[in-house]
């Protein structure tokens, strides 16, 4: 006997109940006299079909039989084989009700109330009209237990005869009575009324009918159903697990309840309000000396945060829901295109806000179609280029500094920047001189402009140039970003950065000209502080745009006060220039503000229609002190400033670091999966991204080649009591300290973040060479490294 997995049963019950709930309104509408269209029939059909399939899998014959009969009825309605009749809605609704009751009673069908049987019977008889067309031949070569009874008829009258409850004549007279009855009565009730059958016999006969129906519905002719069933098992109890295992589940059934999304949204809003009130209360009371107030505030803090988190979690769903659809999609598309693709999925457990996940679905589909259609070559092309015939499409999701990153990586032909550029000029998207000045990365990013596509012919899978701009807009609406990297001949990486949730976002609060603004942390790269004396050297104007010289690159600057038309008198006396490096689609830029005030978790409030057109604001929020603050939109600000984003300095790219005054900027990285390390950004000369196979080994020492030099590599685990380098990834980072004179690199597995902090680490580990101490940075325990000591203990004399 098949053992029923309680968890499976549980899932089946929940799912089927959901299906039934979805079906009900459609049936109700039918009953109101509006015939369903093909689409609605299909929806009902699919729901019942899913129930049937799952029930069949679990061996729940009765449920399977009933859903099968109604499914056939629907099919005929849909295909127009049977005219729609308002009265049909009623039996279908009763099927829904009956199925629901059966699901509720699921562990023990033998305890189904007798009236349930009667109901099932009349439904089945009504359905048999629909059934007879396909099942009339009654030739089901099933090998199951009940077939021991030899019969194959699906009609209740004949079954009763076969089972010896009725003589053929009795059966005929009951049928005749049934035909004459008005309203039509069930066969069973009539037979019972005529005193020909007992209730128990009717139940037996109905159960038998159900099983035969189920077999018609489920058994593919070639594969007989399970034969282990003891031949004389009571049909109604076939394949039902022992009651003991089922009783355990009865408690588990209440573990999930359905809550409407508006209610969750309301809870979320309220939690947001609570966070705001908490912030205000904290600001007001922080300096009070009331006894016990600190403790109380602390506790309230904790509870509020936890409450907010829990409510947020109710909205979180794993990426898997989205990922599960991809294999099929990739298979279909690649078959259509004659391409061979292996799909690798990673990070299905990463959770995202439901609304983000929903909105993400379309852009993801689009990007994958793009990758397969434009990116991936045909097998012969690939082989001709010396690649494996089968391409790889890697879709992965992971967390990085409070964001979720979704990457779609293909090893196809890559995007040819020059071709995109030529196309853009040809279509008049950009003038020739702008194109000439573009870097490779910038020209690749042109695909985000409306009306650009590199594939000349139009295929039905993707592309007429619409697409990437829509993808970008969709992602931006979610408060996210799309990044694009591509190497011609090697492949393309599309990286989507998303906030965890839309409702509450961590932000940096800045001020300029006395006004406060919030900047979502997701856009933040780093903060640079420049002393007035340095300004002449670091700032320069290129074609009318002020640029900041940073790590051998020029970063365009946007002055927040000027862009917003604010008169700013306070700046005159300032000694420093605060520049916030922001990541926007199309590149980074520096936003000049007066002051950095705080970082706060803010609740985004949408803007009313009167201010919607202000694209430079993403929304508004209420700060801890109760004042309203505008949330800056990093993309809109660039537009407002009339700026064309140029250079793309990215700390993750290979860049030279020159001495700057951002001594308190830290780069945070990991080596093993857990420990975080921090180094002052100013200590670094360069940061390199290397493929793991670029690392060469000579004796015990590892090296990488850089500009014709071999640079020895330092593994932190060889110098400090920390976890070993995670080499299970394709690429690593090499941090090259300035003090090494460019002749040594520290291996890191991931760059977590760059941030500004004035935190001083504790000095507990000060006696370990290379280690300054520990501090909590951004919520994580972080080990602060000291470069000179580190180099010395690696046997490298620091250059001064």
């Amino acid at each position: 006997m098949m053992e029923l997995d309680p968890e499976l049963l549980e899932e089946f019950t929940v799912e089927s109940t959901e299906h039934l709930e979805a079906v009900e309104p459609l049936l109700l509408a039918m009953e109101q006299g509006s015939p369903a269209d093909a689409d609605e029939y299909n929806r009902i059909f699919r729901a019942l079909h899913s129930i049937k399939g799952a029930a069949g899998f679990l061996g729940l014959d009765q449920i399977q039989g009933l859903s099968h009969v109604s499914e056939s009825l629907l099919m005929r309605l849909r295909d127009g084989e049977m005219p729609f009749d308002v009265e049909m809605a009623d039996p279908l609704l009763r099927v829904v009700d009956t199925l629901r009751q059966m699901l509720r009673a699921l562990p023990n069908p033998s305890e189904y109330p007798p009236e349930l049987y009667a109901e099932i019977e009349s439904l089945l008889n009504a359905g048999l009209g629909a059934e007879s067309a396909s099942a009339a031949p009654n030739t089901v070569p099933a090998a199951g237990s009940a077939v021991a009874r030899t019969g194959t008829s699906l009609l209740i009258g004949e079954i009763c005869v076969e089972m010896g409850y009725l003589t053929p004549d009795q059966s005929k007279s009951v049928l005749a009575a049934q035909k004459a009855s008005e309203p039509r009565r069930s066969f069973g009730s009539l037979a019972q009324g005529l005193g020909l059958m007992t209730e128990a016999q009717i139940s037996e006969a109905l159960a038998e009918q159900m099983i035969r129906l189920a077999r018609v519905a489920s058994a593919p002719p070639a594969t007989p159903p399970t034969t282990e069933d003891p031949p004389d098992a009571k049909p109604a109890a076939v394949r039902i697990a022992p009651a003991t295992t089922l009783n355990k589940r009865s408690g588990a059934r209440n573990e999930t309840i359905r809550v409407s999304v508006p209610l969750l949204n309301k809870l979320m809003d309220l939690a947001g309000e609570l966070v705001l009130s908490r912030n205000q209360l904290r600001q007001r009371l922080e300096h009070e000396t009331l006894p016990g107030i600190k403790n109380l505030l602390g506790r309230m803090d904790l509870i509020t945060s936890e409450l907010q988190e829990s409510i947020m979690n109710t909205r979180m769903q794993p990426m898997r829901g989205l990922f599960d659809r991809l294999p099929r999609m990739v298979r279909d598309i690649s078959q259509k295109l004659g391409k061979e693709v292996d799909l690798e999925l990673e990070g299905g457990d990463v959770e995202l806000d439901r609304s983000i996940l929903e909105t993400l679905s379309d852009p993801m589909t689009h990007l994958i179609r793009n990758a397969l259609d434009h990116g991936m070559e045909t097998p012969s092309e690939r082989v001709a280029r010396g690649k494996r015939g089968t391409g790889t499409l890697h879709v992965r999701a992971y967390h990085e500094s409070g964001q979720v990153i979704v990457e779609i990586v293909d090893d196809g032909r890559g995007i040819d920047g020059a071709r995109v550029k030529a196309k853009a000029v040809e279509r008049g998207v950009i003038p020739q001189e702008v194109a000439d000045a573009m870097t490779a990365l910038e020209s690749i990013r042109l695909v985000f402009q409306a009306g650009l596509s590199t594939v000349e012919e139009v295929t039905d899978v993707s592309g007429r140039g619409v697409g990437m701009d829509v993808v970008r807009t969709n992602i931006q609406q979610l408060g996210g970003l799309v990044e694009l990297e591509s190497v011609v001949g090697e492949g393309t990486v599309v990286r989507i950065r998303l906030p965890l949730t839309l409702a509450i976002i961590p932000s940096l609060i800045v001020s300029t000209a006395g006004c406060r603004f919030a900047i979502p942390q997701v856009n933040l790269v780093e903060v640079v502080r420049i002393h007035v004396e340095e300004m002449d050297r670091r700032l320069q104007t290129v074609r009318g745009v002020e640029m900041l010289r940073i790590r051998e690159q020029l970063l365009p600057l946007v002055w927040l006060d000027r862009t917003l038309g604010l008169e700013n008198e306070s700046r005159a006396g300032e000694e420093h220039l605060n520049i916030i490096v922001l990541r926007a689609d199309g590149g980074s830029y520096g936003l000049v503000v007066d002051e950095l005030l705080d970082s706060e978790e803010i609740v985004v409030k949408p803007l009313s229609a009167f201010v919607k057109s202000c694209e430079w604001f993403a929304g508004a929020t209420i700060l801890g002190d109760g004042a309203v603050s505008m949330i800056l939109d990093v993309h809109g600000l660039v537009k407002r400033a009339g700026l064309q984003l140029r250079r793309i300095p990215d700390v993750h790219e290979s860049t030279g670091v020159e001495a700057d005054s951002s001594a308190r900027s830290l780069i945070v990285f990991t080596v093993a999966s857990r420990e975080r390390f921090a180094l002052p950004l100013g200590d670094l000369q360069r940061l390199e991204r290397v493929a793991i196979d670029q690392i060469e080994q000579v004796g015990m020492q590892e090296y990488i080649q850089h500009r014709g030099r071999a640079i020895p590599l330092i593994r932190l685990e060889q110098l400090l009591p920390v976890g070993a380098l995670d080499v299970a990834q394709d690429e690593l980072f090499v941090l090259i300290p300035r003090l090494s004179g460019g002749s040594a690199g520290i291996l890191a597995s991931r760059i977590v973040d760059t941030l500004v902090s004035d935190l001083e680490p504790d000095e507990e580990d000060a006696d370990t060479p290379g280690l300054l101490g520990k501090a909590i940075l951004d919520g994580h325990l972080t080990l602060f490294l000291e470069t000179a000591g580190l180099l010395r203990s690696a046997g490298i004399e620091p250059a001064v």
Partner: protein
Amino acid sequence: MNQESHLDGQRRFCSFFVDGDRFAIDILAVREVHRPLGVTPVQHANRFVRGLVNLRGQIITVLDPAVRLGLPPREQTKASRLVIIKTNDELRERGLDLTTCDHLVALWCDAISDVVSPGPSGIEPASAAVADGDAGDLLQGVIQVEEDVVRIIAPAAMLRIDEESTAAA
């Protein structure tokens, strides 16, 4: 029909001053009156929008009726007030047969004045003299209160969301 202010068959209006003239709005459309504390400006928004203000956790868009009436924006003084308007949803919930705006908004005025009711002659159509040019449809009419002509604002027109009221500057 809700009868709050119709008990004696009289409509009541909350009156206020803008640029020395007296205006009024159906009191059923008014949620409350507030001092304009901490109005956060929205840079480059339409001149009609004075900014945003926090009212017990809700963000309210503050509008300057003067701008719609073709007058210069008003300076803030000690007497300045915000007339906070009920949203359409709130009105509907209360069964009030009035239309204002779907968003939470407040009207900025120089000073708040009395609650007034139309005299025996009722609401008269606004003559060209009091409602010149485009401002015409912003007024429902006028009522005479003692010596004063009080201009009755048509809330739906005043708070209309159109290109004129939303375009960024």
